[in-house]
């Protein structure tokens, strides 16, 4: 079965001026490959600077990829077909306050994709579609003429989701969609994502740093560190049977809202800070903080190898 979306050897380097005439490259995404099947959710986790947001944006061609291929249903996505591809792949953004134009009404915000792709032949049809979308995300139809700033964070996020759904996409990149919301509202929005997936069969690339939420919503998870994927597998495998040292420490560092559980487990506390992506360590980027690093780790970047059941890990030692 061809996956819905496939990414092969994606690279995204940003030029950074480090001196008067010197330009170094910030390797935000360095040779990343993964796939997402239809109707599936792939969670992408990692800490700040790991490149997960860049992956999401490059996937939608908001940045021109430095190298690598992006395939949608087997067809390569490039400059020529990106406009029509935008009807199949959409994005929901993190900040509900800056991702909606404060001068536009809800109706116009949700209707913009319809206008850009000329999906409605009449004003009436457009209105109907917009109201249907609002209903789908749980917004009151009478709020269509209001302005974005009159809504709360959770409602704005729903508007953003309705906007993404307007073109009937099969794949949505969700870039930290609930991080800026209050805890009690996060559950509402997460449930909505799940319901929409059931109803419409949409696939998600769910980028977030809240590991509990990602575990809950994802079928599979990929863990990134300094622009590389270090581990990927089913959500349960990555969480409970983590193999890569970084994944292990990440999972043990997550505070669990369960006092007995959290106080009884052993914590792996990493020393030091994340190295700057401009001066990445040679070989495996994690070796500077890894307790199990060996000589080979400094020489060569380990490839992702299958440890069984599709559980891929990039590590020489484990």
């Amino acid at each position, binding site marked *: 079965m061809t996956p819905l979306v496939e990414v092969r050897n994606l690279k995204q380097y940003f030029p950074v001026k480090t001196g008067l005439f010197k330009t170094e490259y910030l390797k935000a995404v360095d040779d990343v490959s993964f796939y997402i099947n239809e109707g599936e959710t792939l969670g992408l986790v990692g800490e700040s600077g790991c490149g997960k947001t860049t992956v999401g*944006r490059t996937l*939608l061609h*908001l940045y021109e990829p430095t190298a690598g291929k992006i395939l949608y249903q087997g067809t390569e996505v490039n400059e020529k077909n*990106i*406009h029509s591809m*935008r*009807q199949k792949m*959409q*994005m929901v*953004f*993190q*900040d509900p*306050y*800056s*991702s*909606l*134009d*404060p*001068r*536009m009404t809800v109706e116009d915000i949700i209707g*913009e*994709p319809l206008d*850009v*792709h000329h999906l409605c032949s009449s004003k009436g049809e457009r209105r109907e579609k917009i109201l249907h979308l609002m209903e789908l995300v749980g917004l009151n139809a009478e*709020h269509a*003429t*209001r*302005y974005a*700033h*009159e809504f709360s964070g959770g409602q704005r996020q729903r508007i*953003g989701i309705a*906007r993404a759904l307007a*073109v009937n996409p099969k794949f949505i990149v969700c870039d930290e969609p609930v991080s800026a919301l209050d805890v009690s509202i996060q559950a509402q929005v997460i449930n909505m994502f799940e319901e929409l997936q059931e109803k419409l069969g949409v696939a998600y690339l769910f980028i977030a740093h809240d590991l509990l939420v990602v575990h809950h919503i994802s079928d599979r998870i990929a863990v990134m560190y300094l622009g590389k994927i270090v581990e990927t597998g089913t959500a349960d495998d990555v969480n409970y049977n983590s193999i890569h040292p970084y994944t292990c420490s990440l999972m043990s560092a997550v505070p669990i809202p*369960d006092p*007995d559980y959290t106080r009884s487990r052993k914590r792996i506390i990493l020393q030091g800070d994340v190295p700057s992506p401009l001066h990445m360590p040679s070989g495996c980027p994690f070796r500077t903080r890894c307790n199990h690093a060996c000589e080979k780790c400094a020489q060569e970047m380990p490839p992702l190898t299958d440890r069984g059941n599709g559980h891929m890990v990039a590590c020489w030692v484990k």
Partner: protein
Amino acid sequence: MEKKDNTPKKSPLSLQLNLSKFNSYMFEKASEDEKRQQDVMSESTTFFKDGMRKLFKNPLAVGSIIVLSLIILIIIFAPLIVPYRYEEILSVNGIRDKGAKNLAPFTYSKMEQQYIEAGGSRFPHIFGTDEQCRDYFIRVVYGTRVSLIVGFFASIIVLIIGMLYGSISGYLGGKVDLIMMRIVDIIYSLPDMLIIILLSVVLQTILNFSPGSLLDSLGTNMISLFIVFGLLYWVGMARLIRGQILSIKQNEYILAAKSIGAPTSMIIRRHILPNCISVIIISTALQIPSAIFTESYLSFVGLGVQSPMPSLGSLANAARGGLQNYPYKLLFPALMICLIVLSFNLLGDGLRDAFDPKLKR
């Protein structure tokens, strides 16, 4: 959530409260309507309405609006009421009234007094008359007209050119922006007064207007003023717009529009320009007094509108000569300039406070 502990011992709640003060009605479930009372959404306001509301709360801004409205009403209606024309040398019964020179406000010349005693009626000279026996009030009114029109049109020119230039530079960014802004820097360094004077001299020799036309009555000085405004003064607006666009570009909704597939023209039209409007209005409001001031200054140094067309600056200039004897002649045009410039400045400030986009809700 799994209970790791067994349920708490029977709560001694009944010991803490007197349960007899409760009845079962109190513990009935509340209906949705009763709960909904809390969840009212505030009245819908657009950004514009909200800003206007704030503006009208500001007493200085409201004051300026009133003053400006009054001035505009006067300059529209005064010529209909006052029977004198601005270039008209006063005459009584067809005879030039030489004695009507430099009359004080509300006084009449000898000839006029005789005329009134003889039964005629004469509209009072509210501001008196000037050196050339012309009614001063109507001259001040016309002078205000000229100053306001000049100020207004100069601002429009600045706005259009500045907006186009700034938005292209800001949106495209990169090398284009770099080059365009260096051009702006060069223009900033040019001496505007010098260029106006030079241009005005050059135009005088080149252009020949048919006498009596609007352009002729404005004079080459004014034409050169407009040209120079168009060539030089738009740079401030361009920088402002460019800065505004640079900051708007950072917002995620621009990225969202790109991810939807909106073309550049649509993004500029739908997202960027509407968000600049408040800045545009504010800086235009502040640009008008600056243009009026420049015109007044030029007229004061003798480079203003051609006589007999008055402008506030030229009136002030003409009044310099007889300052000791007739101080009111300088007072009235100067006061008018001050009122207009102050009002526009206060209005501009008020608009900025009311529509400040940095105020997050």
